[in-house]
């Protein structure tokens, strides 16, 4: 009897942990979305694209970086603001992944993290993460 109770308790605990893991997984999942989708959602998402030429400006006082992403497939654009130190060689980026959420009040994408791919002679490309 005692043993059966222990087994049931163990199974319940495992179930609880599985549920906890799955909900954490769903909350933590940041999906890749298109720019129009990013504008509609409040949750954390990631967007990718190229850097629009001459679109980036950096304000050292507030340490905020403002730039425009261009979707190479659709030519849609998205204005992105990132708070933090400007990534090295940022102007040379061939592709940028921005992780964050859309800020409706300022009408721009507020990125908390950037993945910047720079052209490199080494295998693939050099990617650096900034957060």
């Amino acid at each position: 009897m005692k043993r059966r109770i222990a087994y049931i308790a163990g199974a319940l605990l495992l179930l609880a942990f599985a549920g906890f893991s799955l909900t954490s997984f769903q909350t933590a999942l940041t999906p890749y979305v298109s720019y129009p989708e990013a504008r509609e959602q409040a949750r954390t998402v990631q967007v990718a694209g190229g850097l629009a030429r001459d679109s980036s400006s950096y304000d050292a006082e507030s340490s905020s970086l403002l730039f425009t992403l261009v979707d190479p497939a659709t030519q849609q654009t998205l204005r992105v603001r990132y708070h933090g130190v400007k990534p090295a060689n940022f102007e040379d980026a061939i592709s940028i992944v921005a992780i964050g959420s859309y800020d409706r009040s300022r009408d721009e994408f507020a990125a908390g993290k950037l993945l910047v791919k720079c052209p490199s002679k080494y295998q693939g490309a050099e990617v650096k993460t900034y957060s």
Partner: protein
Amino acid sequence: MSYLSSLYLPGAVALWCALGFSLAALWGYARALGGDGTALLFGRRAYRFFALAVTLASAVLLVCLYLRDYRIEYVYQYSGNDLATHFQLAAFWAGQKGSFLVWLFWGALLGLPLVRASGRDEAPVMGTYLLTQLGLLLILVRENPFVMLAQTPADGVGLNPLLQDNWMVIHPPIMFIGYAAAAVPFSFAMAALWRRDYGNWATRAFPWALFGFLVLGTAILMGGYWAYKTLGWGGYWGWDPVENASLIPWIFGTVLIHGLYLERTKGRFRRLNVVLATLVFLSVLYGTFLTRSGVLADFSVHSFVDLGISGWLVALMLFFFLGSAYLMATRLREIPSAPSEDPLLSRGTFVVLGTIALLASAIVVTLGTSAPLLTRFMENPGQVGPEFYNRVNMPIALLVAFLLSLVPLLSWRETAGWGQLLRKARWTLAAGLAGAAVAVPLGVRDPFHLLLVLLAVAALAANLAAAAGLVRRGGLRTAGGYVTHVGVGVILLGFLASSAYDESAKVTLERGRPAQVGDLTLTFHRFVPRTAAAKERMEVEVVRADGRRYLAYPKLFVNDRSQQLMANPHIRSFPLLDLYISPLEYDPGEPGGRVILTRDQVAERGGVAVRFLGFDLDTGAHGAMPAASGPPTAMTVGAVLEITRAGRSERVTPLFRFSPDGRTEFPPVEIPGGGSVALSGIDAESGAVELLLAGLPELPGTPARLSLDVTRKPLIQLVWGGLYLIFLGGTLAGIHRFRQALRHDEVQAAAGG
């Protein structure tokens, strides 16, 4: 024949020979399985030739790298003339092809002692093991590292500057020893199923499982230490897919070790251990697939491109998955399982619970790492960040620490009850409470964190007492488990302190002006130019709250070849914390004394009038720059200036030197009466010169600025210290289990003979 002529034959032939010998060995072992006794000898001999051929192929690549033979594409792609010898050799594992070759090399070497260690099961063990080797070999024959270029370049592309670090020289090869070792317990398990002999494999596989655990763990430690010391983002673990790809087999390996322990001591887990040994090996293949196939290209900092081997890796995984699944499905039920079940409040139950907890951790980490793959077919693929891993592993860490603090007090037989257990655990509990009481004034308020401190300190204390007790009774050789678990308690404290309680601040320092960061005062003194021995560095003076000071030298430099901006942090370790100073950005400022003059133009700055009279190309006559400071082919140009101060005129000639390697230097020249001037640039078309004036009063301009990330990492030494204890305990256990396996073979030989 063009395929043949595009290969460097000494290496390619060695690989083909390896393929031939491995097939021959496989044939021999297969015949031996069918009962042909002489074929066993043939298989064994062919295996040794296979190992020799793989060694030769590796030696050829190493020699080609050493000789900088750029005919070979791989040598060209990953090395260069400017590399020091040890980095040149490290280029061996800088690319994917070389990595697979290192993996195969270690695998072939590990197989040599395995021939002996597999004893009576040599044929099925070596047969399975050869199949794992053959998988790697086929990838290498297809993605041949000995492909040659049509023309021979004069210099290679060079090694990724991030990898030019001593830790990176040894981290990957050690990692691949661990990967290679993962195939050994798997081979033992498959052989046991094949032979329907389930009583021996656990004893034989145990030391190998411990060996793999130790080696892979050491490699993970080195990778973490490299990330902490070199990359400058302030951490040692980022839950990146590539890191996880090595962590997942390590956790499965840890579970396997506990399973084998239970099987050896209590005869439990006999079926599960076969599954676990398979999982360790399959997780190595799966991790390789995730990181080498390009499926994670948009999600990982280590962006490996698709080499076109994803199909091979998938086929390899499917082959071993289906093969082992078939054997397990048909034969697992035959394995007799222990009839006696553990009493509830006993050591057995607690070890089982801990094993399940670790298994759960391995599964959720696999789930998280696979997120891009799992969501690939949904509308929007996505990934999970570090928060996910930290969150789901927290309850596991709590449970593991709880179990570890009680396990040493439990016996295999039923313990009388919770009351008695609590009485036995009173000192453990007191230690944990004391730990939590110390943590509160240090700023730990979160109830879960306090609970973790309590349980981790309790686990540390209980296992330390148990280890000390054993050692006092002369049982050092069996104290491995306790020592490892002391390490687990220590490392949990280190993880918590260094990740949840680090304090970080970004600060921009103006040159010469002290700034307050927390209780530190930082002053950026100067930019230290590159010397032969060291890269460009920043000199920052740090004054701590107690008035003690030191100079920090974080590095910030542009790699000559790739033009990448590289940042290396400066780390100062104190007994209770690390001060981690990482450079973010350097702005040299606008030197106010910069003027551009054409011939006969005059500029006035800081009370001095400068007139540019003309170029002086006959600079050999000047003593201003010693001729020895550059090779004779360097070109030197001087600008003849007339400098007028307070009515008195003087002539000075600052020089500008181009080196053939593209570097320029322009040493400042003293101006009589104070200050200096340097010729910082020449525009040949307009005949203009750029001059830098310094040391004069009231020059306009902006000062140099340095942006830093200053982080306090409390108790990070506990992370490294805990890992050392885990490895020490693992080594003790490894020696113990190795001896047991040897004795087991002797007993068997005596019984059989």
